[in-house]
């Protein structure tokens, strides 16, 4: 299935916004594993995902055409 990845903050320095074709990934936990394998720099970071503009609080199902944002710790204000 197709997933759109968007990244923010320091994560933009090693993950570009992109559409990817993945198979066998059905939830956000599996997607995190996929991301950390593909972008090892993520492992040292505390980051959060947002699935279709909702911040992921617990493992959530991913469907085709999802947009997933990868967000490092917030530093507004």
């Amino acid at each position, binding site marked *: 299935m197709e997933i759109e990845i968007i990244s*923010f*903050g320091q994560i933009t320095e090693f993950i570009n916004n992109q559409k990817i074709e993945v198979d066998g990934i059905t939830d956000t936990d599996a997607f995190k594993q996929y991301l950390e394998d593909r972008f090892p720099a993520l492992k040292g970071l505390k980051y959060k995902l*947002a699935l279709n*503009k909702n*911040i992921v609080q617990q493992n959530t199902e991913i469907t085709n055409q999802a947009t997933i944002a990868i967000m*490092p710790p*917030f*530093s507004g*204000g």
Partner: protein
Amino acid sequence: MSEKKIKNIFVKGPIEPAFIADSIAKHSSKTAIGGHSIFMGQVRKDEIDGKFVAAIEYTAYEEIALDKMHQIREDIFEKYPLHCMHIYHSLGTVKTGEICLFVFTSSAHRKPAIAACDEVVDRLKAELPIWGKEIFEDKTHQWKENS
């Protein structure tokens, strides 16, 4: 306050003192207000490894940030007897000494305005997907982290 009307909070570049004055002046017709509390964040010229911060460049996941801010606003109006609340945060470049955050709460008596303002700032910093990139005078950078 409960209609789902998402207000924008983002301002391009710094928040000008004249903008703040305007915002204050607009409240003179709201004669049930007795106390206003304001918090302003200003970009510090921090020194890190001998280099000085010249500016912070802010980016945000705007849709989520505005949605979260809406929730926070609802919670705060629920919790405190406020007359109004205004929140502005910069996007893009804000130089040292300039203002990047402006939170403004008003109530009949002072305590709720002060408590609400404080709580909004805390929650905004913790919950809004906004990122600050500290640009040093030599154009190198580091990503800001809220302590």
